[in-house]
């Protein structure tokens, strides 16, 4: 029984990081109405950036995290400003091809820069763990989950209290209305994509503590992010977090109870059931 509790706890902690990653996708879709097919690829870039800074400068991933997030913000801002803004309102398949091209270029760039081998970050506290009443919890997992929660809270505060955050919400609610009252929608879209990318930057740095990084895992994470936001409700912030927790636990449990190679089967089954039974997601409202 305790084993199961251990696994559920580990799944929940990983799920927090998944949730933050999916939050980025959800924010971008919720505001810009663009489906970011390069989401996992952006995260792998963030993972490599954190790994690079860690190995070259010997800095802890938590120390380099703000720098990675800032870098991803700038890259996301530039991408939206220079490229994606022109495709707003265009047919979905054109947007898809645009982001697919970006994702192919990102994956191949990481491949050229870092090679195809799986790499991981070396930490002194990698094998530390806490024992709470017989429960054994990895220290890195707890720290990663804490980081994700802090990131999510900061995002919430940004949208809740800052002027820019409120303006972005206004754009999401009513784009024409936002334009009428004089908001620079194109710039706000760029900020939004930047914020979504920064989420991915933080999530990528945290995920590096838990898994190895390799260029080709990017597509799996794109799919995972989609699964999570659909399960939770596309465009809903609590939904993305809830979806992350659910998928984290379902992956951990099915990997343990049945077999590891079947773990994503359950995520997809969950996705199919949610899409059919509640297409707006568990938390989302029907449009």
């Amino acid at each position, binding site marked *: 029984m305790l084993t199961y509790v251990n696994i559920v706890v580990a799944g929940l902690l990983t799920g927090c990081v998944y949730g933050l990653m999916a939050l980025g996708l959800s924010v971008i879709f919720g505001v810009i109405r663009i489906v970011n097919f390069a989401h996992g690829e952006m995260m792998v870039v963030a993972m490599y950036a954190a790994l690079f800074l860690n190995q070259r400068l010997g800095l802890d991933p938590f120390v380099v995290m703000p720098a990675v997030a800032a870098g991803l913000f700038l890259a996301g801002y530039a991408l939206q400003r220079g490229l994606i803004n022109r495709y707003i309102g265009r047919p979905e398949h054109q947007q898809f091809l645009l982001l*697919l091209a970006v994702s192919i270029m990102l994956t191949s760039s990481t491949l050229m820069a870092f090679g195809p081998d799986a790499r991981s970050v070396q930490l002194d506290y990698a094998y530390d763990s806490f024992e709470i009443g017989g429960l054994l919890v990895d220290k890195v997992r707890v720290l990663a989950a804490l980081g994700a929660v802090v990131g999510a809270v900061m995002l919430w505060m940004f949208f809740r209290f800052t002027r820019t955050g409120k303006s972005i919400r206004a754009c999401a609610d009513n784009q024409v209305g936002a334009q009428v009252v004089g908001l620079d929608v194109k710039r706000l879209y760029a900020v939004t994509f930047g914020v979504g990318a920064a989420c991915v930057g933080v999530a990528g740095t945290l995920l590096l503590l838990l898994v190895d990084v390799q260029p080709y895992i990017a597509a799996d994470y794109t*799919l995972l992010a989609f699964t999570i936001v*659909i399960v939770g409700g596309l465009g809903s912030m609590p939904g993305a977090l809830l979806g992350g927790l659910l998928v984290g636990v379902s992956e951990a449990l099915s990997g343990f109870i049945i077999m590891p190679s079947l773990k994503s089967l359950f995520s997809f089954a969950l996705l199919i059931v949610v899409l*059919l039974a509640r*297409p707006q997601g568990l938390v989302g409202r029907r449009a």
Partner: protein
Amino acid sequence: MMLDIQSGVSRRSAFAIGLFVVVMLVLPLLVNAYVVSVLVVVLFSAYLGQAWNVMMGFAGQLSLGNALYVGLGAYASAALFVHYGLPPWIGMLAGMAAAGIAASLIAALSFRFGVTGVYFALLTISFAEFTRIAFDHVDWIGGSSGLFLPVVTLDHDDLLHLRGSPAMFYYVLLALVLSALAFSHLLLRRRVGLYWQAIREDQAAAQALGIDVFRYKIAAVALSAVMTAVAGGLMAFYDNNLYPDTIFAVSRSIDIIIAPIIGGLGTLFGPILGAIVLTMLSETTTNVSASLGVNGLKQWIYGASLLVIVMLQPAGLWPWLKSVLKLDGVR
């Protein structure tokens, strides 16, 4: 988008189409084995793109999971051949039936529950991935370690059992592509094609006109799946091996849809042009990056080229080429 009801193909266009068919017919006689193998890839990609185009280009239903139907077609024909010695053409019929039923079920479930657009695309990916992982664990078809077809060396091409030279596959595929071209042309002019285009342009308006939107959308998805399954069957017998992880791969579903988008969605020649351009691009970049020895350069150039095309010709290359060559009346 204007619907040209009359068949206004100009002489110039008819000549161009004739020339294209003749070139495709004699090409394998003039080139070496490597080029034939590349042409087979072109035709596979063109045909899969044509099949996808029926669903997305004509009826506007975005599926990102067509690898599911490739895989069903491939596994049905290969497994029936390996286990019962049935000729692949019979197995392909089984595969087409399986793909048609699977697609109808997926489409009926989605459209009944109001799952459309991006959500429908993700649902199709999920079903394809679900099937991929499930097939990994079915021993009857070899599971994740794959299903292999016995390779026999014959001095002649056995069309019935699809055992033979790449040139034989080339002509089978060419026949398939040309049939799909004629079939698509016909579809667009018949009532069903007009209904699909009405649904694509404005579903609510189509419904208001009394079109049974639900049924016609399912028909588009199912027809596309059935066509796709044929390519799957041929692919199994061309490659002689089958793995769930490659045949059902998401990357395959994505590859299927790039060619028709690059070529020109909803057009007749777009999927073919897109397949030619993309395969040539991919072969060139492979050769270039192999000679430079840089890992990942090939994909980078490929991605950059896609980006350039979608920026310069977002509606696809065929509409542009058509106006450059002044081919009137061809879609």
